[in-house]
């Protein structure tokens, strides 16, 4: 028995998993491990699945691997529907990266990033409404360039404004498995602060021009975060 105290004791048989030859499963785990370990960026689960022996459930394998690495210096983490190995955060005192500093965000950029994360999909006009100020040029640019924010689609309202959302890199960077893990998301939702609905129909005017597009108004399918409840049911987005 190893003094190093291997992680074997935390691994439990996954319920409901198909009964597969253990050697096949072991081989699958080795392949998954190698694929994710060899990559710096998160690896799509579907990509791993394609490379596993037939009949092996990728989700099952990944959950087992995650448990296997849970107490170790390197952890297997989920980033959306991707997987990545990352050093354990509590070891940050000893591990230092040679590559420069983590990107610093201006106060405004950070605020805009949070608003996009919690309210997505969200238009620029809505961001400005929440902040009560025009978004200066370059703020969104910085977030787009960092790869944390992306154009998601268009809102099905007059003018069809473009909506913004966060990316997989955003989740990866902030150590989030999924958007549900955003700190305080539930409380904010519970307090009605993410609904975008203001209790009365009155709005404080913004004196300067907001986004106004006069392009055509074909319906578009909106990517759904509805499941997350980040979208107001019924889609009254125009406050």
């Amino acid at each position, binding site marked *: 028995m190893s003094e190093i105290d291997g992680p074997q004791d935390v691994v439990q048989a996954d319920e409901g998993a198909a009964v597969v030859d253990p050697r096949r499963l072991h081989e699958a785990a080795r392949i998954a491990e190698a*694929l994710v370990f*060899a*990559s*710096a*960026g998160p690896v*799509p689960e*579907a*990509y791993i699945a394609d490379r596993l022996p037939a009949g092996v459930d990728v989700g099952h394998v990944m959950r087992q691997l995650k448990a296997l690495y849970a107490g170790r210096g390197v952890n297997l983490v989920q980033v959306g529907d991707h997987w*990545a*190995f*990352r*050093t354990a*955060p509590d*070891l*940050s005192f000893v*591990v230092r*990266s040679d590559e420069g500093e*983590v990107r*610093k*965000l*201006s*106060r*405004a950029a*950070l*605020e805009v*990033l*949070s*608003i996009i*994360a*919690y309210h997505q999909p969200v238009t620029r006009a809505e961001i400005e409404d*929440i*902040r*009560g*100020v*025009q978004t200066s040029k370059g703020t969104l640019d910085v977030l*787009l*360039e960092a*790869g944390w924010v*992306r154009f998601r689609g268009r809102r099905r309202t007059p003018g069809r404004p473009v909506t913004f959302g966060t990316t997989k890199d955003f989740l990866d*960077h*902030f*150590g*989030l498995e999924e958007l549900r893990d*955003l*700190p*305080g998301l539930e409380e*904010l939702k519970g*307090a009605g*602060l993410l609904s975008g609905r*203001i*209790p*009365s*129909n*009155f*709005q*404080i*005017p*913004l*004196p*300067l021009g907001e986004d106004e597009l006069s392009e055509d108004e074909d319906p578009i399918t909106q990517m759904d975060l509805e499941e997350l409840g980040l979208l107001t049911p019924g889609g009254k987005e125009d406050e």
Partner: protein
Amino acid sequence: MYGTRFNPQKTDASDAAPMEELWQDNRDRALHEEGLVVDIAGFEGPLDLLLHLARTQKVDLSRISVLALVEQYLAFIERARQIRIELAADYLVMAAWLAYLKSRLLIPQQPKDEGPSGEEMAATLAFRLKRLEAMRDAATRLVNRNRLGRDFFARGAPEHIPTERRSAFDASLYDLLSAYASLRQRHAITQVTIEKRNVWSLADAREILHRLMGEVEDWTALDHFLLRYLTEPSERRTAMASAFAATLEMVREGQLELRQDGVFQPIFLRRGAQAQRGGQPDGQGDDDHV
């Protein structure tokens, strides 16, 4: 009541693990009781200022006195005006709205009154402040999470880049859009410079007139003067306008005389008394020999 400094990032969690310097633009958002320093530049718009004022009430945002808040804001704006600080339009618009809100809150609503009641408006304001504050807190919590490249790290020596894409090429939408935008912008700006050359500045016109003056003894039509410069039809209008404006100035200096026999008739000019004496104007005549 303007006493405290507002440093949202330091209110909580300041004793938690190594706090990063959160903001690059850690501007001093100080408001002093004396009212001598009213630093509007420290605020990001009227809502931010209102939130700051609300925080000084030191109560839960849902229980702030909106009326008191309105008065604080209006007093702040008033003071800023007294010491002649230039206020952005947003602040004034907000002041007007708050003044209206105040009147709504003070005067009981008439039965046939249209629009939201003062209470509804106040609730709206409180909601917006609460939401902004919630987003501020969320931002602080977000940025203080363990972060990739600072607190946890990726494989330092990756052995391959997995890709699901059938495409052998990589590019993001951002790459695409920024390539397009900068390309179009580059060309748009080049075009602007070309157009600029088509416009005669006053200085240009003056310089040309100076150069031509030696050649003119008697009354000559302005058109004739400029003939050689007007090969390009598109330049005609700007050349005439600038040249005429320049002649007026030169007439004032006594270097030219100007005559027009009737409306829409040709404009004639000849050397003025100053020029005949060989006097050069000071000032703008510095680059007349090219």
